[in-house]
């Protein structure tokens, strides 16, 4: 090996040092990119996981008990001999139930004669101050054969009475609009018969695992709440097409 001059040695060292610096710089940039890519991957995986959770059916509770049979006291509409029986556990003050109300109405029109619809009282009295009185109003209207008229009115006007301390008066006004016998309506609002029936329905619902509103059952099987009207429709159609 030939001997290097002092100047050459210096030059070489400088070059080596620069090389090292460049390498470090590259490693640093690489590390930065790796961090960004890593975090992005974690975020994408997380969003994917959340989609899975959101899509997973809520724990079906049909195993914990059978849906109570439809009785003559249950508010029902549609064809009792239809292939599809749709049962809804709902609370008149629950915003989600009001959101589903037009869907259910539409279903009953689109599948006229092919659906038997049962409404089950599930007043969430712990969080909705007018849940019980609104259920009673529907019950009292039902005693004069106008349950469904009151049911529609309650859902359609939910915003106006939901937080009102005078919901009772509002419901009496509704009864007047529906041409009900007001004296009888008022007595029925107070009667224990309504309260007992509503509480009984609620308790039986809770016993089979209903814990939120609305909860729908199609032919006795609890379904995950459909996202859209079309989803709801296809669930009904599947059932109609079953042998």
């Amino acid at each position, binding site marked *: 090996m030939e001997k290097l001059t002092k100047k050459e040695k210096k030059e070489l060292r400088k070059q080596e040092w620069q090389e090292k610096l460049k390498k470090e710089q590259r490693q640093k940039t690489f590390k930065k990119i790796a961090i960004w890519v890593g*975090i992005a991957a974690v*975020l994408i995986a997380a969003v994917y996981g959340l989609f899975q959770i*959101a899509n997973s059916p809520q724990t079906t509770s049909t195993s914990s008990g059978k849906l109570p049979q439809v009785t003559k006291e249950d508010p029902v509409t549609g064809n009792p001999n239809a292939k599809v029986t749709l049962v809804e556990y709902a609370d008149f003050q629950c915003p989600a139930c009001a959101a589903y109300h037009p869907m259910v109405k539409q279903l009953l029109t689109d599948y006229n004669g092919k659906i038997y619809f049962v409404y089950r009282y599930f007043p969430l009295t*712990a*969080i909705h101050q007018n849940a019980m009185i609104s259920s009673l109003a529907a019950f009292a209207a039902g005693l004069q054969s106008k349950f469904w008229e009151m049911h529609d009115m309650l859902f359609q006007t939910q915003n106006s009475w939901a937080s009102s301390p005078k919901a009772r008066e509002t419901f009496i006004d509704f009864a007047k609009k529906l041409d009900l016998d007001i004296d009888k309506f008022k007595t029925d609002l107070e009667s224990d018969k309504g309260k007992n029936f509503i509480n009984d329905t609620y308790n039986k619902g809770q016993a089979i695992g209903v814990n*939120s509103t609305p909860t729908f059952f199609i032919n006795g099987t609890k379904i995950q709440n459909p*996202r859209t009207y079309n989803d709801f429709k296809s669930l009904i159609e599947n059932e109609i097409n079953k042998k």
Partner: protein
Amino acid sequence: MAGQVFSALILLLSFLGFLDATYLVILHFKNAFPPCTITTGCETVLTSKYATVLGVPISLAGSLFYLLLISLSILILTSFKKIFANVLILIVLSGALVSAVLIYIQFFILKTFCQYCLFSEGVNFLLLGVALLFLKKKIFK
């Protein structure tokens, strides 16, 4: 070193917030409601008129808010500039203010709560706490 701890804490909290908010965004656009138990009123809160601002769900704003914080904390970790820290502190502060308003709405107007929302608001206050702690220590001076 303190700066790294700071960024890592912000990163972790923002990630938790991101998970929570994004879950609600997904449910919102699926038109579904999270499992609402009897004792809480999450459906009431999430379907109330306060849940969206001009058609945009608050959860989506929250999700983007956390995404921004995640990006900023990585920037602070990898290529620190004082401006990043300043912007981050400003964003955290505004997040805490919005949370205060949302909590007020749940407590005094709707009078029911949504556990998902409260979690996110809790995260925002923790973020503010972390930011103030480090601001006090003047680690970015």
